């Protein structure tokens, strides 16, 4: 199946349509089909043709009675009707010349014998008319660049460079809001569902070729074409990082076994081996999957595991250093010479060895620009983790809390803080571009604080807590090792 489709990949057609026919929406807002169509209307730039046997207008769009009434042979058919109605629809689509579909409808091979029979029927029709489709039992696809979103939730963040392939529809759609909170932009998101026609291997192959996709995040519950998966993944991982979350069970040794090898070969162990062999980085949780996805799709690669930590606070610095050491990253003492230079420009009680702690200073230019510049110029450091940016929301909270008691409090401080922070952010963004080494911020504040959002929008990840930034720095190091080992 599916070989040599380098330029002409079915997923490329499915995710870049110019026209879509949507079956399963109506004017009834309590129906999920309608809500899916709303997502599509919100952002899609091409033509949308709702199909409905009775309604002539749906959500402001002219509706068509059937597929054969459509004014054109659409690029993509999206199906959300009951499972038993799908075969008839597919035949109509096939006759119309439609070759690509997303079947969101559930109730096939995951539903016992009757579902299996239905699946077989669909397979037969699809092969007769050469229809390639995603699903069934999926949530469809998202391509923010083209405004394509066949899922339930709305796209919130701007397009980016992480490609997502998920066996769970939830991680393709319910995550769309969450991505805006960590500043993650995606290139494509593919919900593969039952993988009856297009599977995880096809999807991986496609995102491997997709120029918008710089890193790939996989959510996998089980792979059918394991050998093909390994083969395809091996060709991608030297060029693009691939991260996988596999929650496939920890019940190792459950099988009846004679040998030690059999007793030890649980699903989890075998998948772990498969990922390592393929050069795939394994994430421990959904949060970690997308953290790593964010960092690996936006940061330059880490070429040295020596990390410098810059903070204005002792505790966060100690935690960051501790996480680094535990994960195998190095936090080396800076050279005497560099320490001397730093001492001259930092408050007298600062720690200057690494972690650098400038102690409760809000001189952002110092620790977000001058110090990183000195470190990158003078030291053999692979990447920097910074903690301590507190933007205008903290000033605003403070002012609001005392406004009633102190009349003369200068409210313009909120605005000037924001201006100052953004100015320094710009200096750092420029520095990072010229140095081309990863910088990650650790923070206890999210994008509700404007300078944090500004950094996130400009490819400097800001992650909550002290561990998440370090885990991602480690992922960058792991990927460096994968690249150098495989190539």
């Amino acid at each position, binding site marked *: 199946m599916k070989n040599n489709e380098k330029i002409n990949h079915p997923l490329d057609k499915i995710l870049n349509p110019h026209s879509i026919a949507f079956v399963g929406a109506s004017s009834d807002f309590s129906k999920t089909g309608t809500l899916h169509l709303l997502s599509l209307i919100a952002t899609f730039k091409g033509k949308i043709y709702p199909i409905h046997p009775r309604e002539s207008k749906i959500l402001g769009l002219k509706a068509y009675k059937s597929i054969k009434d459509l004014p054109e042979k659409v690029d993509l058919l999206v199906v959300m009707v009951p499972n038993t109605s799908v075969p008839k629809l597919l035949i109509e689509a096939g006759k119309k010349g439609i070759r690509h579909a997303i079947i969101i409808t559930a109730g096939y091979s995951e539903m016992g014998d009757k579902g299996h029979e239905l699946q077989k029927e669909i397979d037969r029709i699809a092969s007769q008319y050469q229809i390639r489709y995603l699903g069934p039992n999926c949530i469809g696809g998202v391509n923010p660049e083209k405004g394509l979103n066949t899922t339930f939730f709305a796209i919130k963040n701007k397009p980016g460079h992480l490609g997502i392939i998920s066996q769970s529809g939830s991680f393709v759609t319910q995550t769309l809001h969450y991505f805006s909170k960590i500043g993650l932009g995606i290139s494509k998101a593919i919900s593969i569902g039952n993988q009856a026609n297009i599977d995880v291997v096809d999807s991986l192959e496609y995102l491997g070729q997709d120029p918008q996709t710089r890193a790939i995040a996989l959510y996998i519950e089980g792979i059918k074409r394991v050998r093909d998966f390994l083969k395809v993944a091996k060709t991608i991982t030297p060029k693009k990082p691939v991260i996988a979350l596999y929650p496939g069970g920890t019940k190792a040794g459950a099988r009846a076994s004679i040998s*030690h090898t059999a007793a030890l070969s649980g699903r989890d162990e*075998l998948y772990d081996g498969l990922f390592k062999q393929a050069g795939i980085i394994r994430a421990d949780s959904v949060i970690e999957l997308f953290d790593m996805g964010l960092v690996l799709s936006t940061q330059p690669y880490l070429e040295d595991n020596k990390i410098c930590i810059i903070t204005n606070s002792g505790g966060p610095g100690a935690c960051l250093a501790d996480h680094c050491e535990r994960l195998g990253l190095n936090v080396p003492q800076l050279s005497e010479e560099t320490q001397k230079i730093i001492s001259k420009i930092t408050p007298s009680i600062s720690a200057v060895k690494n972690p650098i702690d400038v102690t409760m200073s809000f001189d952002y230019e110092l620790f977000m620009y001058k110090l990183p510049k000195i470190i990158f110029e003078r030291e053999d450091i692979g990447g920097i983790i910074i903690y301590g940016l507190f933007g205008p929301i903290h000033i605003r909270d403070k002012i609001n809390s005392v406004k009633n008691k102190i009349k003369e409090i200068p409210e313009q401080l909120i605005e000037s803080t924001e201006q100052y922070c953004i100015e320094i952010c710009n200096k750092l963004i420029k520095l990072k571009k010229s140095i081309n080494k990863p910088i990650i911020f650790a923070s206890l504040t999210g994008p509700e604080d404007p300078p944090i959002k500004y950094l996130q929008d400009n490819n400097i990840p800001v992650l909550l807590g002290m561990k998440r930034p370090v885990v991602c720095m480690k992922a960058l190091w792991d990927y460096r090792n994968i690249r150098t080992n495989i190539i």
Partner: protein
Amino acid sequence: MKEQKILSEYESKNILREQGILVCKEILAKDFTEVKKAIKEIGYPVVLKPCLSGLVHKSEHNVVFLNVKSEEEAENAFNFIKDKFPEAEILVQEMVNNQREVVIGFIRDQIMGPCVMFGLGGIFTEILRDVTFRLAPVSFKEAKMMLQDIKCKKILENVRSLVEVDKNALSDIIVKVSNLGVKNSNIQEIDINPICFNDHGIPIAVDCTVVLNE
């Protein structure tokens, strides 16, 4: 479920020997006269254990006699084994330094197909679970990377008074086992446990079980 046949240790090792995998010196003996002859050839100290098709995890039956140094000890061991497993033959082996034990295994998984394993060996393999798998066949480079993929990887180095193990030779066994399993679809499982190391760090297969699908 297919019928399975568990090969005896000696039969299992014949398969390894055919692949050119270094196996400890050993002679199969039917009676005590043959045991004595075998000991003469191998030289003390020796290991005595029963050799019987279907017998696995021998140490759980207390029938593996290590470091046998005299004819008297050998006779006691022989009698004990024969008492417990009258139909068994006796395998007389050289005593290999067992300070370091690793395991190399093969499994034909229903979903993943042939897979190869490397890890920390010995009787606590399943408790310590310090092992790593790959889909078979593996390249030599992949096999070498497996050596770096266990927590106890440092035992392969020059530690305490021990020499660094021959990692190329060890990786070579992984490759051979992985190929063996891939090429012979009747092989269901292979367990080489332990693999020990001689004074030069060369890996030697000390015990092995092969399970066939009939």
